[in-house]
């Protein structure tokens, strides 16, 4: 598991975000916001251009989540083919 903000290397001033507890608070805030959007999705009358916006619940949320995962994970796979050393073009 990767922690979002590991402790600072410098023993200087402690910041609010240095505490992983506080980072988790932000994550929970995001989760709550998403939950709120799901709830809200059922409550208002949509005026979209496409039928799927109205027939598919939380269409944009699901689309955003899946598209994001697809982009990041496929780019990660793409890296295996495309990655070269930093001095590749200087050699």
């Amino acid at each position, binding site marked *: *598991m*990767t922690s*979002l*903000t*590991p*402790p*600072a*290397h*410098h023993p*200087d*001033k402690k*910041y609010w*975000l*240095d505490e992983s507890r506080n980072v988790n608070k932000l*994550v929970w805030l*995001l*989760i709550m*916001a*998403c939950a709120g*959007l799901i709830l*809200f*999705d059922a409550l*208002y009358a*949509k*005026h*979209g*251009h*496409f039928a799927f*916006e109205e027939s598919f619940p*939380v*269409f*944009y*949320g*699901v*689309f*955003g*989540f*899946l*598209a*994001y*995962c697809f*982009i*990041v*994970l*496929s*780019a*990660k796979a*793409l*890296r295996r*083919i*495309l*990655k*070269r*050393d*930093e001095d*590749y*073009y*200087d050699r």
Partner: protein
Amino acid sequence: MIAEGLNPALILIAGGLLAPLLGGRVRAVYMLMLPLLGIIQLCGMDYGSGNSISLFDLNLIMLRLDRLSFIFALIFLIASWLGVIYALHLRDTVQDVAALVYAGAAIGAVLAGDLVTLFIYWELTAVSSVFLIWARRSEEAFRAGLRYLVIQVGSGVLLLAGLIVHFRVTGSIAFDHLGLETPGGLLIFLAFGIKCAFPLLHNWLQDAYPQATVTGAVVLSAFTTKLAVYALARGYAGTEILIYIGATMTAFPIFFAVIENDLRKVLAYSLNNQLGFMVVGIGIGTELALNGTAAHAFCHILYKALLFMSMGAVLFRTGTIKASELGGLYKSMPLTAGFCIVGSLSISAFPLFSGFVSKSLIMTAAAEGHHTFIFLVLLFASAGVLDHSGIKIPFFSFFYHDSGKRCAEAPANMLAAMGLTALACVALGIFPQWLLYPLLPYIVDYAPYTTTHVLAQMQLLLFAALAFTTLMKMGWYPPEIPSVNLDFDWTYRKLLPAVTVRVWSLLDRAWGRLNSTVECGVMGVMGALSRHHGPHGKLAATWPTGSMVLWAVVLLGACLVFYYL
């Protein structure tokens, strides 16, 4: 207005060329005044054409102002002014002059009423802007600058070829709607396509911009590509293939941006992706879509400049822009981090930020034109934008692992430029009906802040952010590692040189073999001659006079025979 008929472009070009005569603070004040004078001049002019010059049989229209050229010229002047503020700490005459002449050339091109004038300014943008890359004064930047120059000038040559064909067939050099079917139309389209970084013609952008100076990249990000967007909107509005080209442009750079380590290169990929949205708008070609393109260019220039400014400040203070070496900088540069986040929220099109009110015009135009697949591609690309520009840029530089780097906050002038640009991004997002929509080429009948639209966008963005959090927590997000990723420039930076070297060595070897074969043959002939005619040769042993008489008799005999025949 300062003077009747004075082209605002000339204020910047001539003014820029005169800048070296001044020094210190006087030059700084002078340079700050130039774009402002340009804005005063532009806003004081009436719509119409002017400054005609007759050259041979050609009637050059140096100045053509209408609603489309106005909005592009205005944002170019604003970007130029912000660029001057951002570079005020700098003492580099080359960059001072190059930045102003380059901005002036781009404005001149936008205001050009004919293709010849467009060509002249088109090439001037290439020649002046390369100095913003070379001013980095490193071997790497020099070579990247050369590659950039070759491609940019090449685009100009295609434009010239296209306009010659067009003129020969139609007898006109007017720069109005061209279309692909017009004579020379395809050549001009390709010329615009190179500058607009169409897929496979795009790599000069990701190659050159990250090599530019801290301030140079900010200036570069504003003009060249948006000039191409303007030119396409003027000449090729409604050309259907642009919808597909644009959609491809929005989608493919996002994959490269995810795994790129150089954060200014991430921004270059992101720039490419944003151009895609504008190109789709041009391809759709309706009034709503073209309004969307102009609005998006306007907003994009500001938030992209803001992002380049913030990353420039990081590079300026820490000496690196590699994500693998950065992190935790919000502790040292909190204001820069804040401005960067405003840029990120704007490009990601969060409600109340500028990207939201401009991108949605294009998305709505796609939806109204029943381009369902294109709409979904744009939506997909929007999730990608959130990743590379919305999250990756601020997260890996200002947050995430603390790199231990402690530096000063950005210089005051950089903060001022970022602050003003950030303010513009927010103001445009909140008051588009006053600040943005009245500037657009066509009358706007569009309300971005409807419940459906705001909630749909919030769903898209927050769930994508949730996906990011999930991938990070699971450790699946690709780590930032020092590397370069192959892109299409591999073909001309590696493949082509390798093929050339191979072909050259093959030719060299073949030539060597041919040489030795011919040499052997010649030596053989010479040996044979020497054997027969040399000092010890059989033919040399006979009496020379006798042999000559014999040949004379043979020749005479032959003559007689031919005579009687």
